């Protein structure tokens, strides 16, 4: 019999009597399913957070902020600077009107539904052009607010998260009462965690006569960022800079995403060590209960290599079962699960976990590796058993 044939026969024999070792085999499956579930769950949180922020950024849009600042919250753009920027090259125009809008970005303490505790609800004052520029924003319930009135529209995630955001209700923000007239979506991006109102009214409420937080602009094309940036730099009066929107939100996503990702890998690594111990235990006992059987095969003339491989295959198959189970659990429990946390500007960001295909593949690969390590030593031990000693066990 050639080696391949031997491997096939012995492996099949092992797998056939797996049901007899159900309880101990479950240790591998469940242990590795646990590792994979946790790893995917934590990483899917990072992915979901990142996707929510990155989803807001488009390459052909620019955010204009004060030169020294790195977020809308800490930025300010004076009104006269804003009027100047509207005349600059590189901006997309409709009928000669530039697609640029001044916005105000602040937070307000509103109680969360989940724990009745004050949290920083982000609030954006927008201008009519904002809707033209951010064309992914769609009203899904109610209607848009009317400029000049104390009306607001809320992102669907903000509405889920904060108390008092219901269509038709009045929300008290910063001492003023705002009528909730509509809910909007924005392709799942971070804006869905915000509440939008008329910028002019918000500025008056805040006593911020001096200007905007930032401006949002649609570029003529993605390549025109430099044109706009150069024009700003050429003007000594201006203390502003133009940042590509996609780069802006990448930057905002980085810190928390890498924190969660690192945490996920660390925890998964420690758990993997635990799972390997469990797998080793199982495979050693699987080998030891079959020591007579293995010795008989060896006495019949089977070579050690097929024995090694058969044990490895068994361990890897069990691990793969665990990996598949873990991925399935992670997908069914966590995909789309909504959570919220404090983002880079202290404001609450609500996001959905994203169990992507990439993560599931990664989980399966991990499980394979764990199975390999868990099976390697026991398989070698099985093959190296002296035949006569093992047979005496009969």
């Amino acid at each position, binding site marked *: 019999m050639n080696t391949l044939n031997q491997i096939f026969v012995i492996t099949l024999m092992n797998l056939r009597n797996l049901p007899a070792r159900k309880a101990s085999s479950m240790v591998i499956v469940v*242990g590795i399913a646990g590792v994979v579930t*946790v790893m995917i769950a934590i990483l899917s949180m990072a992915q979901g957070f990142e996707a929510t922020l990155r989803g807001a950024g488009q390459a052909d849009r620019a955010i204009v902020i004060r030169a020294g600042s790195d977020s809308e919250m800490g930025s300010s753009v004076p009104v006269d600077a804003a009027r100047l920027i509207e005349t600059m090259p590189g901006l997309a125009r409709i009928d000669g009107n530039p697609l640029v809008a001044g916005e105000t970005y602040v937070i307000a303490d509103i109680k969360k539904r*989940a*724990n009745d505790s004050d949290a*920083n609800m982000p609030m954006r004052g927008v201008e009519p052009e904002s809707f033209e520029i951010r064309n992914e924003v769609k009203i899904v319930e109610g209607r848009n607010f009317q400029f000049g009135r104390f009306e607001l529209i809320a992102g669907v995630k903000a509405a889920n998260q904060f108390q008092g955001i219901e269509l038709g209700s009045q929300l008290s923000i910063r001492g003023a009462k705002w009528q909730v007239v509509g809910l909007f979506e924005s392709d799942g991006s971070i804006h869905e965690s915000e509440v939008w109102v008329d910028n002019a009214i918000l500025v008056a409420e805040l006593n911020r006569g001096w200007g905007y937080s930032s401006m949002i602009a649609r570029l003529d094309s993605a390549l025109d960022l430099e044109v706009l940036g150069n024009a700003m730099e050429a003007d000594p009066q201006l203390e502003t800079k133009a940042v590509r929107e996609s780069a802006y939100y990448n930057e905002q996503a980085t810190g928390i995403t890498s924190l969660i990702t690192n945490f996920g890998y660390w925890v998964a690594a420690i758990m993997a060590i635990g799972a390997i111990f*469990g797998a*080793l235990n199982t495979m*050693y006992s699987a080998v030891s209960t079959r020591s007579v059987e293995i010795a008989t095969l060896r006495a019949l003339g089977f070579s050690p290599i097929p024995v090694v491989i058969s044990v490895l295959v068994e361990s890897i198959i069990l691990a793969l079962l665990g990996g598949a189970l873990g991925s399935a659990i992670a997908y069914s429990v966590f995909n789309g699960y909504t959570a919220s946390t404090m983002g880079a500007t202290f404001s609450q960001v609500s996001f959905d976990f994203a169990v992507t295909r990439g993560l599931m593949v990664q989980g399966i690969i991990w499980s394979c590796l764990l199975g390999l390590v868990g099976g390697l030593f026991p398989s070698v031990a099985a093959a190296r058993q002296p035949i006569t000693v093992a047979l005496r066990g009969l």
Partner: protein
Amino acid sequence: MKYLGLIWSALYRKPLRSFLTLASIFVAFLLFGLLQSVSVAFSEGVDFSGVDRLIIAPKYSIIDPLPEKHAMAISTIAGVELVSHRSWFGGVYQDTNQFFPRWPVPPESFLAMYPEYLLTEAEKAAFIQTRTGAIIGRPLAETYNLKLGDKIPLIGDIWPNKDNTAWEFDLVGIYDVADESVETDQMFMNFEFFDEYRQWSQGTVGNIVAKIKDPDDSAAIALEIDRLFANSSDETKTTTEKAYNQMFANQIGDIGLIMTSILSAVFFTILLLTGNTMAQAIRERIPELAILKTIGFSNTSVLMIVLCEALLIALVGSLPGLMLAAALLAKFSQSISVFNGVELSALIVAQGVGLALLMAVIVGLPPAVRAMRLNIVDALGDH
């Protein structure tokens, strides 16, 4: 403990399996210790707050300014011992990834308010007297290799200075902390210099801290403070420092809660599986237990031997796991941000030991009872 020899030989029967079982219990309790500590910190906030301190924050949002003169008014309220304030500087050091909180504070009242930051008398005096003075925690100084007298340049992303240049602070003190739960990754600098040199918002602060004589009065004094500024253009919201920190912890909250609930589920899975292996090890030896009974061991002795074996494995595996968790937290509580200010509390150790004992009983009891009730003839006949 005259049966120790017997228990030992039972464990030594298959040393590899015993070792692997111990190792998985070890890992499970290591994870338990680490994550339970992080979880407590997430859900309750790192507890470096004093019970006798109140935080007076702007009513509507943390980004609103409060007039500095509010502090003066608050200090006249009966029961208030000391008033200080702090502002959020933000800022960029080296690059945006090198973030640590920076707070302009009035040095004198700050030092009196927070005795948990330990500085030498000379450093304290230098902090009070140096206009551009700043102090940082020792771990931060080590991370960035900063020494007394060094300049710390910061870009003011929220607060540009009047010359529109980078801010420069002189490092005049490196503080230690009185106990490990105090955060050390913060920088404090002289408010007066910050206030004069920034481009706008002179005379305003982020929030005001008041120390009160009797913590029992905190609710009444908090109400009185808020009433003092009610209907002014700068209304306030006063809470205890603990409640204020809790509010922040809640905002990060969700993530911590999710992580730890996933992980506790997994911890129990590991225990379940390990328990399964332990129970199997005992079941395999039932004929041997029958022999023990044949040679005269009483039913209770057999029960105790089996239970003690389970207890021994559980404790020998879990205690070092918890100890390593404590050691790791102590080592990294200052340098890894997730672990900042987190410590393994006595309560968590007790929970861990309790879980280990519970696991030993759940795992050990059924086979132990079976061994106790064993009919010698049947058990020997199985062989």
